[in-house]
């Protein structure tokens, strides 16, 4: 598929073939679209129950302190307050966590970040709940916070958690460690703390069972079964007593992979015996979920004079904040992607994920690779200059190919069209120059009328990236789906979290394609079926798509067996054509509806990806499942006196394997680019001594419609043999290399040696 921000016909496939059926390859419309535009779609924050109470959370104002005492008596005395709970009310495991269970449900003796939960209340009105929080007296003994990642590594600060101040260290060492290149470039790069800033705030409704022996939770999450496991352990309940249903999810981007209010909400429901609704406001949301790891990365590249990359050295430091979350996996992604999408035989990488008294960090779209990519792409530009080459030529020269060895020793056996991504991006047209008398809205700074046309300089920059797909290091993140066919109607069931990406329409497309039906109903997304794994790591099209495809194929086999038996045929002769079952070697043809009349075919299928391995101490091992690639070219206008940036255009060619829904794919690409733009020029959680200074949408800036660049997209379709549908995950790559591309464009416009993101006006003016 080529271009576009241009209009996309809603039901034509990539070849322009118009289909009236929403099968794979066409822009089938999402089933939740009309309810969402009419305001009828139920988000988790819209859940409501008779007799329900509102839950609210008390949080530590200090990044590091001992708790001397907690007095809840004045809160309990408030009319309308039904319960106040603290760590003493947790009946099961006192901690949770995705990889390591190291985060307390409530702080008991010590708080380790500003915003850590200390207590929770249930009351008849949100305002009553707020007043109850005010009335809880917590006596703290404030301690010096650990906010310097290097101090955590050096061991120069007292240990702030029983698990120590270093969450994980991982090296990647390969090849001749004494090699020195003819050309050597180096730099230190910093990446600020980015927030997922999903629009739909954390919210849940917990309904206690009649005997208070279990609980049902409607919640916006990325992974129902992982939540269920962690909640049940904290509640000391068996898994079947904690039943989760997905409440409508208003975006996620990694920020809903960890537990936030789930355990608190269930505890309050069980304590009061009444339904509990909890929802965070925006400020609390900044404290209530993890963020993208801020990073400091030193890199040194060695190359031959002709620009051939020979060795990468890197030291990667990720600040994981107070609790581990997924830090160890984010670190693995960062250190194993330091070479970028380039062939390189020698590596010396040392990485740390450290603990600090900053807010906890974990998953966000791009997961460690965003940080790595900003460093390696900044380096490639430096290398280009040092070798007297064009930024495009040096990337083409080193472009990775299928069959190359990665710095982990793993063989790249995914389709790897890196060169094609770069060439097709370069072929997309550049935008016209800024007019001599532009509309103010076209100028950097926009309607503030702060930029002057005569001060505006244009720049162009490049970024290319590699991103692993699915979970790594031996983790079997399988997905489950169930398909039921009866009377020509398919009903699908899965626990795949629909967070906005559109899996619900993809699942319908798969069923229509495989089974020749038009009507595909979807069961509620819940723990009533096996796990689908997380909606993260660009994995659901591949994994849950594979599970739905598998379940539908098994049902189709059963259908064919039935038809074959009835008509005395070999089932292998039968195929689906359109909505019919057809004998490929004879004249038999009738509709799937007829073939399945008064019958029920009901099958469940698990899709597993191939096994991966853990890394050894030198970072060697087949730790990743598969990879996708993308190239970005950014064009910016910069007011060099005021440091204002307008991103004019982003062109991209992305390795997607196969486009299954052109409209949905385009939406992922454009949306990811906007988030990468945010990290490049505006988005950062500002911390001072461990305290967040900007936890609001007034002070944490997000790209608006006026910040959105024109986006030109070329989808590279080379089906991936490993992938069940030939399609690679497409969610993460768009946001990864666009950030370095924009920064490179700003460097091109200004001549400044910018080494941190987001680029701030002062970096441009005074840098």
């Amino acid at each position, binding site marked *: 598929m080529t271009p576009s921000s241009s*209009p*996309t016909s*809603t039901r034509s496939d990539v070849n322009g073939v118009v289909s009236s059926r929403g099968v794979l390859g066409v822009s089938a*419309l*999402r089933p*939740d679209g*009309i309810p*969402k*535009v*009419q*305001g*009828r779609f*139920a*988000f988790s*924050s*819209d859940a*409501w129950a008779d007799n329900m109470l509102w839950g609210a959370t008390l949080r530590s104002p200090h990044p590091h302190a001992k708790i001397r005492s907690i007095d809840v008596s004045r809160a309990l005395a408030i*009319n*309308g307050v039904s319960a106040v709970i603290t760590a003493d009310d947790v009946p099961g495991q006192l901690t949770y966590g995705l990889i390591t269970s190291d985060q307390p449900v409530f702080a008991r003796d010590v708080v380790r970040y500003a915003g850590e939960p200390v207590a929770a209340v249930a009351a*008849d*009105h*949100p*305002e*009553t709940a707020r*007043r109850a929080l005010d009335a809880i007296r917590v006596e703290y003994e404030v301690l010096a916070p650990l906010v310097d990642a290097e101090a955590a590594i050096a061991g120069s600060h007292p240990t702030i958690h029983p698990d120590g101040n270093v969450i994980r260290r991982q090296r990647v060492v390969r090849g001749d460690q004494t090699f020195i290149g003819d050309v050597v470039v180096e730099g230190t790069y910093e990446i600020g703390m980015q927030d997922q*800033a*999903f*629009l*739909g*705030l954390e919210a849940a409704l917990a309904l206690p069972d009649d005997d208070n022996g279990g609980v049902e939770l409607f919640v916006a999450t990325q992974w129902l079964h992982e939540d269920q496991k962690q909640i049940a352990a904290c509640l000391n309940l068996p898994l079947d007593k904690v039943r989760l249903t997905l409440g*409508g*999810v*208003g*975006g996620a981007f990694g920020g809903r992979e960890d537990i936030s209010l789930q355990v608190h909400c269930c505890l309050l429901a069980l304590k009061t015996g009444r339904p509990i609704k909890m929802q965070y*406001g*925006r400020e609390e949301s900044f404290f209530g979920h993890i963020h993208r790891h801020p990073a400091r990365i030193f890199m040194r590249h060695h190359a031959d004079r002709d620009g051939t990359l020979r060795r990468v050295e890197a030291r990667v430091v990720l600040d994981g904040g107070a609790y581990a979350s997924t830090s160890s996996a984010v670190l693995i992604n960062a250190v194993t992607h330091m070479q970028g999408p380039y062939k390189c035989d020698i590596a010396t990488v040392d990485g740390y994920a450290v603990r600090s008294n900053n807010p906890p960090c974990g998953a966000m779209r791009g997961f460690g690779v965003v940080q790595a990519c900003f460093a390696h792409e900044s380096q490639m530009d430096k290398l280009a200059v040092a070798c007297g080459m064009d930024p495009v030529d040096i990337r083409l020269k080193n472009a990775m190919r299928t069959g190359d060895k990665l710095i982990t020793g793993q063989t790249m056996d995914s389709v790897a069209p890196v060169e094609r991504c770069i060439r097709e991006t370069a072929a997309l047209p550049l935008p016209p120059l800024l007019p001599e008398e532009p509309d103010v*809205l*076209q100028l950097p700074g926009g*309607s503030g009328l702060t930029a002057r046309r005569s001060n505006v300089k244009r720049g162009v920059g490049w970024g290319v990236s590699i991103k692993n797909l699915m979970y790594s290091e031996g983790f079997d993140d399988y997905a489950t789906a169930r398909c039921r066919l009866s009377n020509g109607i398919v009903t699908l069931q899965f626990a795949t979290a629909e*967070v*906005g*990406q*559109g899996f619900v329409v993809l699942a319908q497309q798969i069923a229509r394609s495989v089974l020749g039906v038009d009507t595909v109903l979807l069961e509620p997304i819940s723990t009533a079926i096996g796990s689908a794994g997380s909606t993260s790591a660009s994995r659901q099209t591949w994994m849950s798509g594979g599970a739905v495809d598998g379940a539908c194929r098994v049902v189709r086999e059963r259908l064919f067996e039935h038809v074959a038996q009835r008509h005395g045929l070999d089932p292998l002769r039968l195929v689906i054509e359109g909505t019919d079952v057809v004998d490929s070697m004879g004249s038999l043809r009738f509709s799937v509806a007829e073939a399945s009349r008064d019958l029920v075919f009901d099958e469940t299928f698990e899709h597993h990806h191939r096994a991966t391995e853990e890394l050894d101490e030198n970072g060697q091992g087949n730790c990743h499942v598969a990879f996708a690639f993308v190239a970005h070219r950014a064009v910016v206008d910069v007011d060099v006196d005021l440091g204002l940036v307008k991103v004019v255009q982003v062109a991209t060619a992305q390795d997607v394997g196969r486009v299954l829904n052109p*409209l949905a794919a*385009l*939406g992922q690409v*454009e*949306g*990811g*680019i*906007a*988030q990468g733009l945010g990290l490049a020029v505006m988005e950062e959680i500002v911390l001072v001594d461990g305290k967040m200074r900007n936890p609001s*949408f*007034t002070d944490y800036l*997000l790209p*608006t*419609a*006026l910040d*959105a660049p024109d*986006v030109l997209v070329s989808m590279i379709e080379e089906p991936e043999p490993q992938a069940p549908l030939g399609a690679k995950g497409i969610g993460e790559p768009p946001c990864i290399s666009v950030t370095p591309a924009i920064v490179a464009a700003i460097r091109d416009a200004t001549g400044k040696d910018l080494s941190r993101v987001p680029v701030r006006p002062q970096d441009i003016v005074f840098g």
Partner: protein
Amino acid sequence: MTSSQDQGNEFYALTVNGMRHQVQDAWVGESLLYVLRERLGLPGTKGACEQGECGSCTVVMDGEAVCACLVMAATAVDADIVTVEGLSTDGEPTDVQRSFVDAGGVQCGFCTPGLIVAVHALLERNSSPSELEIREAISGNICRCTGYGRIFEAVRQARDTRQQGAQ
């Protein structure tokens, strides 16, 4: 407030989507957003920032698009309020609602109701907005999923469809 503080038998009335609604025993500090969602059974209007920055709670008050999170409900007694639920009288999607679905302007959908209301307000006051006018008109509505490209396309489609209908 319901059973605890500040209770009284006082009530006020709001005119929402052409209907008068009694708001009984409400705490006076409640925002229009809260009252619409929690008291009047109209959860289509969403809250995402409580500061008037994101536009998710956009409603039309006396013809003007406003952030319901910034309006004290009790001060809106004389206003004519239209929410996303009131844009269509027959339950069928409006042209703008349809174009958002057709053009791919909906992903997670949380910003969508506010955007739908804002675009209706735009097209009411300017039936042929330019590209920049479209961008400016919805620059108060933050979308985190789409990067806005398909939303611009949805607005263009709705604009063009209306213009064709008017000819």
